[in-house]
């Protein structure tokens, strides 16, 4: 690719957003940045991937954390900021990539080459997907989806100016329920290609 392209995928839990992001990375032949960036951060310090993963995309917990002059003892916030810094550095290096979550829609919003997409799905489809993935019953899947999405929302809204899932913050919001993951990826690919031409 002669010009830089960043595709930011924000997604509801269970919507298949990660699968679509993987597919898009393959189609465009660019790197996928997901929780793999945790191991890259861990490699730079004396902290295990497991330790970082515990606080990945987690909201800051009140009552047991405090902020003083911009410094905080919240591991969730410090790990989030490390990830934001990593994404900013990667974007500044001129590399093209697909990034999943991590407030990338907001963190990289100043990059004209960044296409931000929000992928959602209706509840029955999300439940179906999670039931198949983790071998759990409908109630368990629904409870997990609600819990995970509440956490993602809280995490996103803690660090970003715009609200999670608010269509005004994304170039495209699309439901994966009607067309399935592959066709949804086709539509996103077509849009991104058009958008890329105009960069």
């Amino acid at each position, binding site marked *: 690719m002669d010009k830089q392209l960043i595709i930011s995928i924000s997604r509801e839990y269970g919507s298949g957003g990660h699968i679509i992001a993987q597919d898009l990375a393959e189609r465009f032949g660019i790197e996928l940045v997901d929780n793999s960036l945790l191991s890259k951060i861990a490699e730079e*310090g004396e902290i295990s991937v497991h330790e970082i993963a515990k606080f990945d995309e987690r909201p800051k917990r009140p009552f*047991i954390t*405090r902020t003083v002059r911009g410094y905080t003892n919240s591991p969730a916030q410090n790990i989030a900021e490390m990830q934001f810094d990593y994404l900013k550095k990667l974007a500044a290096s001129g590399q093209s990539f697909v990034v999943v979550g991590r407030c990338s829609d907001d963190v990289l919003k100043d990059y004209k080459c960044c296409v931000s997409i929000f992928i959602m799905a209706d509840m029955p489809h999300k439940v179906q997907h999670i039931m198949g993935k983790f071998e759990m019953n409908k109630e368990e899947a629904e409870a997990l989806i609600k819990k995970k999405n509440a956490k993602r929302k809280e995490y996103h809204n803690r660090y970003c100016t715009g609200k999670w899932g608010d269509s005004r913050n994304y170039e495209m919001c699309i439901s994966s329920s009607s067309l399935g993951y592959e066709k949804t990826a086709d539509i996103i690919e077509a849009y991104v290609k058009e958008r890329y031409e105009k960069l």
Partner: protein
Amino acid sequence: MLAAQIVATVIFVVMFAFIVTEKIERQYVSLGCAALVIIFVFGVCMRDVQAIIDTLAFKDFGKLSFWYAAGEGEGEGAGINWATILFIFGMMVMVEGMAKAGFFRWLCLCIAKAVKYKPTAVFVTFMLMSFVLAMFIDSITVILFLAAVTIELARLLEFDPVVVILSEIFCANLGGSATMCGDPPNIIIGTSLGYSFGDFVANTGFMAVISLVFIITYFYLVFRNKLVNKDASGATKNYPNPSEAIQNKGSFIISTIIFLIAVVLLVSHAQTGLTVATIGAFVAILTMITSFKDLKEIMKKVDYKTLLFFIGLFVVVGGLEQTGILKLIADFIAKISGGNIYIMIAIVLWVSAIASAFVDNIPFAATMIPVIKNLTEISGVPLTTLAWTLAIGTDIGGSATPIGASANVVGIAVLQKNKYSIGWGKYCKYLAPATIIVMIVCMICIYVRYCGLGV
């Protein structure tokens, strides 16, 4: 008055809740709550314009005693403690000037070089440096610079920086308790009750130094195995040169001189009659004049948010005081202690420590000052005894948890940002016992000195 008391208490509780949740920045919370106190408590419920004037305390600036207090200090009345605000502002300006010149990094590197970069010696000397610096400078600045150099040296010498920084945090909080200007609660206690720098050194300083001996021994015994240099290759290291830390030699010399002037003025303020407000204003003006070309940058870095937070906080606490709520709390403490000085001291000390371990010790100290004044009136226990007890409880108690004091939060943040693992479990495992040790040492000191010997 009952309605005013209820409204003042509700506003205070709401303010605390918002501070803890951090949904809104704390200066907006305290200023917003201050406005509510003025409107609803003093205006609607009490209809008392004089209470508003007293709480805003602007008239203090016009009093000679605000700037110059010959003989025994009088102490400030209820409301905004402008002396504290002005002093903290002055020290912030001075510290920014010193930081810009590279003073702190230079000092850390000089000490590391002087002890030949031996991990155990670095560990002990950095604890001592943290204690001494925090006696005069805010603990946040002390830890910011010490932690950064500690991590740099730890990577070079291959020791565990987590345990060293934890020890530095504890010693910064302990050092802060030793003087009037070391920790904001002490400044508030000192200016509110009219105590001098020397009074603090002779009382809380005395206890802090005794505690320091115990705590260095404790940390050495607990951490000695983690201070072993993992690199046995004996390869030549490229140690950082202290002189490289100095950004500008002229600014460095000037900022060092200003710091020494501030120390001399603080140490001698009981003799010279200059109040902490005057000293704060003086060092601020001196820094502004001598660092004129960097003035914009220095002034930008001053933590105005904390100053605004203090202003709002004093008004909210003023609301509690003017409505008599704090007197009720004092009555309650006097009642449950049955007038027994030992029980009263234990209550003030441990309640202050436990509260400070979980909530900001500044609002707590500001709230407790009128309480101990009332306790003295009710029970006859000397105000000085309760003041030193309150200072030690609030200053030391904050060390027990990661959120108890500003230094803890900053130290942990520096470690986490440098990708070292430190959470509540690891922090409390080492520093909660250390806090308990110091609290017991101080309680014994207070009992022996103020109750037993009556010195």
